[in-house]
């Protein structure tokens, strides 16, 4: 297993480095003077000179890149249009998005996995059709529309929940009030995918020879389904979860925008809309890093769960 992990970590590092290069080149590929782009399109010669000096724009590109990475590793991602340090902005916003993401994942897992299992065990029966149809619809509904609908129903019509905004965790009840709708909205897509994958995986497991053996041993249906089939299925879908998390991260962008939550996701849009290339650079870099790290963690978890990798 050690070799497997080492290779995964190595691959992740390579990908990270390459991704950072891609971001770096992307920003500098924008037509025009990079100093202007990084300086939020101001024409002030003093500012431009300062930017040129700071980002070493007169040096060869590889040197610029290394310098940029060096700064980044030290937590300095530059300043945005309003002269605020980007790293600080990002760091304050990430926990909010993290909370949203974790809540969504929890909701999706607690709804999607059991539903998928039930659909598989009761294949062809009404429960199966209900779950399969629900999952299809959940896949097809764009969550920003769902968000708008929720706001209309629960905030505007029923006044049960606030339409937007965010309250810190120090006020847990208010925090939940603000987070519950966005979390449910964000979890829909992920939950739908989980339902389908779980159902498919369970159908495979339930048809496998070892399930026949388990039944031949006289085990109860609970033990057969819940222990033998389920364990195999859960392990199989671990790798799929990693891929889905990317979609979840994308989803926070829209969800935060609609619900007026000042999180990392919304920061991405703000940066793009304001053409704040320094901010875009930092944000995309952090997003990619986060995604790569999360996938790496998922891979590690998978290697622990799958005995064929863990023990050889």
């Amino acid at each position, binding site marked *: 297993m050690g070799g497997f992990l080492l290779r995964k970590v190595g691959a992740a590092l390579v990908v990270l480095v390459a*991704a950072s290069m891609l971001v770096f080149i992307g920003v500098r590929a924008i037509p025009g003077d990079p100093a202007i782009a990084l300086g939020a399109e101001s024409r002030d010669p003093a500012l431009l000179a300062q930017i040129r000096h700071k980002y070493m724009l007169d040096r060869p590109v590889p040197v610029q890149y290394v310098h940029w990475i060096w700064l980044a590793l030290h937590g300095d991602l530059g300043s945005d249009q309003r002269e605020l340090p980007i790293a600080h902005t990002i760091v304050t916003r990430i926990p909010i998005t993290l909370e949203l993401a974790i809540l969504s994942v929890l909701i999706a897992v607690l709804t999607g996995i059991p539903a998928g299992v039930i659909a598989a065990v009761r294949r062809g029966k009404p429960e199966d059709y209900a779950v399969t149809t629900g999952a299809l619809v959940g896949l097809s509904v764009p969550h920003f529309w769902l968000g708008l609908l929720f706001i209309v129903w629960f905030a505007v019509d029923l006044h049960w929940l606030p339409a937007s905004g965010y309250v810190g965790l120090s006020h847990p009840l208010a925090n939940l009030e603000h987070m519950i709708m966005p979390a449910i909205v964000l979890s829909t897509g992920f939950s739908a995918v989980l339902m389908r994958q779980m159902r498919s995986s369970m159908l495979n497991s339930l048809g496998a020879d070892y399930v026949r053996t388990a039944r031949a041993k006289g085990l109860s249906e609970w033990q057969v389904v819940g222990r033998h089939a389920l364990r195999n299925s859960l392990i199989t879908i671990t790798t799929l979860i990693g891929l889905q998390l990317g979609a979840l991260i994308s989803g926070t962008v829209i969800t935060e925008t609609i619900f007026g939550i000042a999180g990392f996701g919304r920061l991405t849009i703000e940066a793009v809309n304001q053409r704040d290339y320094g901010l875009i650079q930092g944000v995309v870099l952090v997003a990619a890093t986060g995604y790569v790290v999360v996938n790496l963690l998922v891979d590690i978890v998978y290697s622990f769960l799958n005995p064929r990798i863990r023990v050889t």
Partner: protein
Amino acid sequence: MTAVDTIAVASPRSRRRRLLRKRFLRRPMAVAGLIVVLGFVVMAAAAPWLAPYAPSATDFNALLAHPSSNHLLGTDSLGRDVLSRIIWGARASMQAGFFSTMLALIVAVPIGMIAGYYRGWVDTVVARITDVLLAFPFLILAVGFSAILGPSLLNATLALGIGAAPPLIRIARGETLALREEDYVPAAIANGAGDATIIFRHILPNMTSTLIVQATVTIPLAIVGEAVLSFLGLGVQPPTPSWGTMLQDAQSYLAQAPRLAIFPGIALVLAALAFNVLGDGLRDILDPRTTR
């Protein structure tokens, strides 16, 4: 190709097509999906004739009007007919959906196949680049490219296409890797076939079912992607109608006229659902293991 070849190739293929058609017709859901998809395509193509009003035609006497016989779905904040805008909006969605997916396929399949067939350093390079692109979630990638390219429907389509390519490269590569181990490959080589022949006449046709299924899954993602990009102001620019921009406009009027958000959304959901249902059905009938 001799006469014998033609006969031998033609009959099994047409028989297979008939079998697939039969299996398809036994699935009402998939058929329904196909009908709705075709409906949207027709809607997009025939927009000038179907829509009662021009999409940018404003009527300042009927702002935010409720549905009536004049305006079946009401009007928006500028007095534009919602129904017409939805019909015209189908153009942006269908264009974005189909063309971006086609672009992704045209780019991804050859790259993936070459990587999978030749392996070696070509494969390693392609695999690493794909991994890097996959390091960015689809939408973030699309948003990023849009930001670089500038907002417009064309650029949004390009961005979506580029964003959709990496998973397709991976699939094309995987399929090629598996298919090149099949027995007919060395048989073809023994018959003197060159690399190109093997790739295009032997391996590619065996991948088509997987690719078709992937395409029907990618299209709805692209459609929703276009709506998202337009919603964020990165796609279709006003006054061209798009379901995404309609939803963006609707945001400011959620309290007074929620229907402005509901109708375009329903169109989006129907389109995505139809493609997903169709994709599911296709996957079922093309899988040799399903019995019906």
